[in-house]
């Protein structure tokens, strides 16, 4: 069976499980297994790298690295703002990319922010949410961590819509080096920011997988409510249901 077929079978299987909040049976068994695997990979690879990165850099350097990563993703923000019908934000985003890539020395300095062009991150996941594409069930991807079907599709599309990926396509000699290098830098930078938070959460959790799953899905509720038909008042989604006290 080819890789593509395996992926198709997995996606079809996941799609059958229509509720993002149902987590039992084989999917939970798989998710917990993969979560444990990812935690080990984090413990022995990503977390030490993030700690090392923090040890050899200053907060200022890390801020510029984050600005650089964000600038690489800026064309993807622009495209998605346009797809979502946010013309103003599209113009701001295009201008930010032009200014920061040149005057901001390849994006290492967020010059545009100082000129009042505020960063507004978005992605294909949010675009799909705006067009009312359902979220789908929760699953844990090897090494990449928690996703829903929609956020997974969004992540993949965002990944191939960055200039790093286009650049790599044009020059096969550097393709792997550049895209893997950028992916590694993004992962280490993001992990460095979450060092304390994740340690705290893990230490104080009696079932870390459930904590992560619950927080991940709750965090998506706001995005899921942007679809006009399901628009809810702020905070409303966090109401306790009557059945909670049956």
């Amino acid at each position, binding site marked *: 069976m080819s890789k593509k077929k395996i992926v198709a079978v997995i996606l079809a299987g996941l799609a059958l499980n229509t509720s993002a909040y149902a987590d039992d049976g084989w999917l939970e068994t798989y998710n917990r297994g993969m979560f444990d695997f990812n935690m080990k990979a984090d413990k022995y690879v990503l977390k030490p790298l993030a700690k090392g990165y923090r040890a050899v850099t200053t907060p200022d350097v890390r801020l510029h690295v984050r600005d650089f990563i964000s600038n690489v993703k800026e064309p993807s923000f622009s495209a998605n703002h346009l797809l979502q019908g946010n013309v103003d934000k599209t113009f701001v985003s295009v201008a930010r990319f032009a200014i920061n890539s040149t005057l901001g020395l390849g994006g290492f300095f967020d010059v545009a922010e100082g000129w009042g062009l505020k960063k507004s991150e978005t992605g294909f996941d949010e675009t799909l949410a705006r067009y009312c594409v359902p979220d789908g069930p929760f699953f844990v991807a090897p090494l990449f961590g928690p996703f829903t079907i929609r956020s997974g599709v969004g992540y993949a599309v965002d990944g191939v819509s960055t200039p790093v990926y286009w650049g790599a396509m044009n020059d096969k000699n550097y393709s792997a080096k550049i895209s893997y290098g950028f992916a590694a830098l993004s992962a280490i930078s993001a992990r460095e920011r979450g060092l304390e938070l994740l340690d705290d959460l893990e230490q104080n959790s009696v079932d870390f997988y459930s904590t992560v799953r*619950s927080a991940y899905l709750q965090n998506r509720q706001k995005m899921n409510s942007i679809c006009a038909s399901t628009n809810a008042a702020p*905070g409303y989604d966090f109401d306790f249901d009557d059945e909670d006290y049956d």
Partner: protein
Amino acid sequence: MKIKHLIAAIIGFLLMIPQAHAEIDAAKAENFIKKTTQEGIVEIINAKASTAERDARFEKLFNSALDLNYIGKFVLGRNWKTASSEQRERFIDAYRKFNIKTWSKRFDEFKGKEFIFKSTSPSRSADQIFVNTVVPMDNADPASVVWRVEQKGDNFKIVDIIIENVSLAITARNEYTAFIKKSPDGIDGLIADLEKKIAQE
């Protein structure tokens, strides 16, 4: 309609009457959160007192501002119904101590920060309301912190805190329900695990 259903409907109706609370006072609820956060920042985080003294102040504030009986009942979810009264008491006690321990440590994160109040949002329960605040952060977008407040007579209590779209009560309930389902000792296993975490340095 079966007689059983009819009786259940009548009992249900009767139970609803004493629960019909007056509408919550939004301005007072917001003031309660302002006072609580102010007290926390001025008298605990920024105070020049010993760690023990600050921990004691935090515990006092925590106990007076939060309705732990309500939260404890919510986070146990359907397991609350099957728990014995002794288990319920032990759980609430462990949950209270566990939260005081974890939050007195986390509280320092708010040093030098302030809460900006952004009006209130209604809740489905007439005696509850959401007080919306944001906390400006260094080098990042402001963090959203929403306080779920209930009113009992003239008293106000916090029943949930929603940080960056994640409800602490809902997260704890999902986590504890999953733990109890897996644990051979059920609720007792959960209480033992919480007590172990409280004892840890």
